[in-house]
C-alpha cells in the first residue's frame, strides 16, 4: 500500500491528482453543501446539476423536470437552452419516458430508442430527429411521492452503464434534497408551496431572458448565459438576479461589468 504523506496535524494528505471526474463530482456535492450554508437557490442548483450530468455522465443532453400542482411536468433546467430541446422535454406531458417515470416512480431506461416505435410515437420521432438514440428518465422521489424526473439523452444506444445509472439516480436525489432545502428559506413547511416557488422562479428567469434578449438583441440561450455568468461571478442567486433584471434593478452594464462577490473575493 502506498504510504501517504501527512500534514502538520497528522492528517492524511490526499494524492495531488484526483481524476478530473472525481474532482467534478466533488464539486457537485460541495455546491450543494454550499447552498445549505450560504442561502438557497434551487433553480441555480438544478442548472448546475443539468450541466454536471452532461459532463460527468457523458450524455449528450440532460433536463430536470418538476411536477406542477395540476400534475404537469415542467422544465426547471436543461443542459442546453435551445428551444428544440425544451420542446422535446415538454412534449412528454402527452407521452414519453418522463411521464411514465413520473407515474410509476421507477426509472425508465430506453437504451435503444429505435426499438420502441410504438410506445411514444411523437416523442420518439422528435427525439430521433434530434439525433438521440438512447433516453433515460430517473425519478425524483420523496418517500412515496414522485415530484419530478431527470431526463438524459445520448446520441448512441446503450451508452450508459449500470454504474452510470446509479450515479444519475444520485443526481436526481440531490435535486430532490434541493427542493426540501427551501424549507430553511421559506417558512412554508409544505411540499406544495416549495414546488410552486421553484416553478415560479423558473418563470421569472424566462421573463428576464426576454428582457435581455430584447434589450441586447440576443437569442434566448445567450440571454440566459448573461444571467448565469453574472450570477456565478457575483455569487448571487440565479433567481434573485433574474428578479432584479425584471424589476429594472440590474442593467446590462451591471451584468457584463466587473462583479464584486458579497464575500469580497
Amino acid at each position, binding site marked *: 500500500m502506498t504510504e501517504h504523506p501527512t500534514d502538520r496535524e497528522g492528517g492524511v494528505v490526499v494524492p495531488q491528482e484526483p481524476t478530473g471526474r472525481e474532482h467534478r463530482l466533488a464539486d457537485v456535492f460541495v455546491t450543494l453543501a454550499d447552498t445549505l450554508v450560504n442561502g438557497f437557490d434551487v433553480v441555480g442548483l438544478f442548472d448546475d446539476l443539468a450541466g454536471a450530468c452532461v459532463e460527468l455522465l457523458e450524455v449528450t443532453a440532460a433536463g430536470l423536470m418538476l411536477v*406542477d400542482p395540476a400534475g404537469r411536468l415542467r*422544465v426547471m433546467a436543461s443542459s442546453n437552452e435551445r428551444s428544440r430541446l425544451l420542446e422535446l422535454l415538454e412534449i412528454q406531458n402527452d407521452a414519453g419516458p418522463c411521464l411514465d417515470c413520473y407515474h410509476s416512480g421507477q426509472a425508465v431506461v430506453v437504451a435503444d430508442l429505435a426499438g420502441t416505435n410504438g410506445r411514444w410515437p411523437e416523442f420518439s420521432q422528435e427525439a430521433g430527429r434530434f439525433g438521440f438514440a438512447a433516453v433515460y428518465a430517473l425519478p425524483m422521489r420523496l418517500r412515496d411521492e414522485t415530484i419530478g424526473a431527470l431526463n438524459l439523452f445520448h446520441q448512441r444506444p446503450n451508452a450508459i452503464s449500470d454504474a452510470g445509472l446509479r450515479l444519475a439516480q444520485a443526481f436526481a436525489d440531490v435535486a430532490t434534497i434541493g427542493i426540501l432545502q427551501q424549507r430553511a428559506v421559506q417558512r412554508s413547511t409544505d*411540499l406544495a408551496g416549495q414546488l410552486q416557488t421553484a416553478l415560479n422562479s*423558473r418563470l*421569472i428567469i*424566462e*421573463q428576464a431572458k*426576454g*428582457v435581455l434578449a*430584447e434589450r441586447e438583441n440576443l437569442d434566448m440561450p445567450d440571454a440566459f448565459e448573461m444571467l448565469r455568468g453574472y450570477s456565478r461571478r457575483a455569487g448571487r442567486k440565479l433567481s434573485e438576479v433574474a428578479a432584479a433584471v425584471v424589476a429594472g434593478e440590474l442593467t446590462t452594464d451591471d451584468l457584463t461589468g466587473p462583479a464584486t462577490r458579497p464575500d469580497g473575493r
Partner: protein
Amino acid sequence: MGGDGRAPVDGRSRGSVLERICHACIDALPISGAAVSLMTADGHRGVAVATDDVARLVEDAQFTTGEGPGVAAFETGSPVLVPDLDAPRPPAEHAWPAFREATSRLEVCAVFAFPLRLGAASLGALTLYHVEVGDLKGANLATAVRFADAASFALLDFIAGISDRVEASPSSVSDAEYFRSEIYQAAGMVMEQLGVNIEVAMVRLRSHAFSTGRPTGDVARDIVHRRLRFKEDND
C-alpha cells in the same frame, strides 16, 4: 365545507371564471368562503370576486388596514396559513393588530392566503377563510395551490378586461399553454418594447391575443421569433 347559506355578493351565479374558481374552493376544501383581490406594489387594491359578504368584509378589512393574510401573501410571494386567528402569541409577521380588530366581530376563525403571480408579475391574492379552526395542509394545501395557479391566469384575464366575455371552464384557464416558457419570454420582451412593468406587459400580451383571436402561445412565439413587436401605440 360550503353550503351554509351565504348568498353570492352580486347575485350572479358562478358566471366568471374567477367566481367559479372561488366556489370550487369552497366545494373542494375545508373552508367557508373565498375572495380574489387585485393588488399592486404601490398599494392599489380592489376586490375582483368574493363568494359572500364575510369574504368581502375580510378583504375590506385588509384594504382599510393595509395588513392581513392576503396582503402578506402578496408582499412575501409565499402562502400565508393561519389555522387559528385567536391562537395566543402569533408570530410577529402575523400580528396584524388593526386587521384583527377590524375582523373581530366576523365569524372568521382561520384564514389562508395565496399570492397570485405569474413569474415576477404579482397580480393579487386569493384569501380563503373558515368559520372553524383547522389546518390547511397535505392534499388540501396542494389543491389550494392548484386553485391559486388557475386564479392567477383568471385574474390576468380579469385585469385585461376579457374574463366576462370568455365562457371558459376552469380547466381551460389553467391550460398547459399558460406555462409555456415563450409566454414569459415574450412578456419580458414586451416590457422592454413598451417601457412598462412586467404586470402591464403580461396584460398587454394577453389582451392582444384575445383581441386578435389567437392563442396566447402563438402570439408569444411570434414575439420571441421577432415576427411581431409591440410599439407604444399598439393595443
